[in-house]
């Protein structure tokens, strides 16, 4: 069995990193510009962020390739750059942390609605996900992470593409849920139990939630997953929902508050932890301490 998967299924917590997009924005990425451009223009910045997360205690570092699918890149005049963006994103992380951390290849939504609701055909979507998975595998990632999905059909296409084009690598699949009076659903109306079943059938090895409203609900979502699946679980919440403060975007959850939720997450059965939008190396360091306190790392 893959060493990461065997750790996760033994119940051993593994800590990932935090946000990339918001870290890049703080370092000068203009609002509205795609973070993936940094892979080509300032890869050094990616190396620095990777090193900061590694120093904070992250064991898995995510590539800056959330929007590196051809469908998204082509909207920014970066057609045909998927392979190059993925190669640079992985190389920049390795440059900083070598093989001391695992590299997780991020695959985000295509950014358009799938037919029949939207105009994006299933074939175009499948091809885009396959290219991206292939590019990430070729670039040498250790796992693939399909994340921030709302549409189950789209999430399953991405998972199947990773299975096919990145054979042998673990596939993590996480969606973004909101709390409703009837439980947790994605904005497209997908409940946790259905997501667990279909993503599992599509071939995902680790399931869960990322992004969303913050760490408070992350444990509750994880408990809903635990009822629906025996697969290892992942949780990577936002540092709360962003608010605008004097024209600046601010994420309200302090590292300490997020770390205080770690015992809840572990108790809910989550073994792959990390943060999404607004989280920083300080959040990861606080989570590292909380994990180690709950469960001392093997020396």
């Amino acid at each position, binding site marked *: 069995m893959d060493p990461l998967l065997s750790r996760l299924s033994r119940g051993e917590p593994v800590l990932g990193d935090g946000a990339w997009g918001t870290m890049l924005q703080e370092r000068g990425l203009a*609002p*509205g510009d795609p973070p993936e451009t940094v892979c080509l223009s300032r890869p050094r910045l990616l190396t620095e962020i990777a090193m900061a997360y590694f120093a904070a205690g992250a064991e898995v570092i995510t590539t800056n390739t959330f929007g590196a699918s051809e469908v998204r890149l082509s*909207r920014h005049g970066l057609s045909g750059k998927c392979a190059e963006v993925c190669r640079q994103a992985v190389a920049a992380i390795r440059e900083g942390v070598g093989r001391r951390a695992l590299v997780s290849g991020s695959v985000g939504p295509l950014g358009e609605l799938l037919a029949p609701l939207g105009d994006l055909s299933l074939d175009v979507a499948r091809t885009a996900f396959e290219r991206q998975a292939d590019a990430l595998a070729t670039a040498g990632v250790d796992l693939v992470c399909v994340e921030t999905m709302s549409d189950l059909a789209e999430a399953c296409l991405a998972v199947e593409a990773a299975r096919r084009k990145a054979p042998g690598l673990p596939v993590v699949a996480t969606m973004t849920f909101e709390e409703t*009076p009837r439980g947790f659903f994605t904005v*497209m*109306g997908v409940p946790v139990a259905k997501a667990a079943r279909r993503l599992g059938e599509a071939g995902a090895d680790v399931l869960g939630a990322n992004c969303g409203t913050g760490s408070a609900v992350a444990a509750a979502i994880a408990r809903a997953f635990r009822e629906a699946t025996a697969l290892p679980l992942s949780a990577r919440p936002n540092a709360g929902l*962003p608010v*605008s403060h004097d024209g600046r975007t601010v994420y309200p959850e302090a590292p300490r508050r997020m770390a205080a939720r770690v015992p809840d997450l572990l108790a809910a059965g989550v073994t792959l932890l990390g943060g999404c939008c607004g989280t920083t190396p300080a959040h990861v360091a606080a989570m590292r301490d909380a994990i180690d306190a709950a469960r001392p790392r093997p020396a």
Partner: protein
Amino acid sequence: MNGPEGATAATSALAAIAASLRAGEADEVRVGTRRALAEGATAAEVLKGGLLAGMSVVGEEFGRREVFLPDVLLAARAMRAGMDVLEPLLGPGGAPSAGRVVLGTVKGDIHDIGKNLVGILLRGAGFQVTDLGTDVPAERFVEAAEEAGASVIGLSALLTTTMAGMRDVIGLVRERGLSGRVRVIVGGAPVTEAFAREIGADGFAFDARSAVERVRALVAEAGRA
């Protein structure tokens, strides 16, 4: 179609349109709209009691997450089907234009579902709308407003990272000395009244329905300026 009986029949026809719209059934909405008109309802009555009534139910249900995005999209499509029937009767041909509006989603942002709803309702209310689409640079809004002789620019943003672009449009309107003639209204999920004030927007609307009322007031203001 006069008298209390006619009124009841018309009311139930409108309620049926609202229900079909709520269910996202575009064909039913189209047929129901034609039927209501044939039975004597005016286009304005069908719009208000049928289409808008149905859309506001869907909007509220989505706000409470009793329904989800696919339901909103299907309802918006059904609304469009009804509007295709009504527009020739409501438009400038029938009544004088309520004003000219340039509408779009700001730079870097491709969310357009809410913006499209605002556009549909504005057209329904008799405004002449130039929809610039999504990912629209500040420059383009101002140029289009000048070209169209619009008195209102409507900006939509769904990302906290692109909201800032609204400020650029307002700055440009001032820079070009258009502040007197052109008013700017902003909206979209992360946009608040306080943010609108902070960036110097002339108006803010929380949803598509109140956007129409706000735009109406801004057109009147711009006319007086």
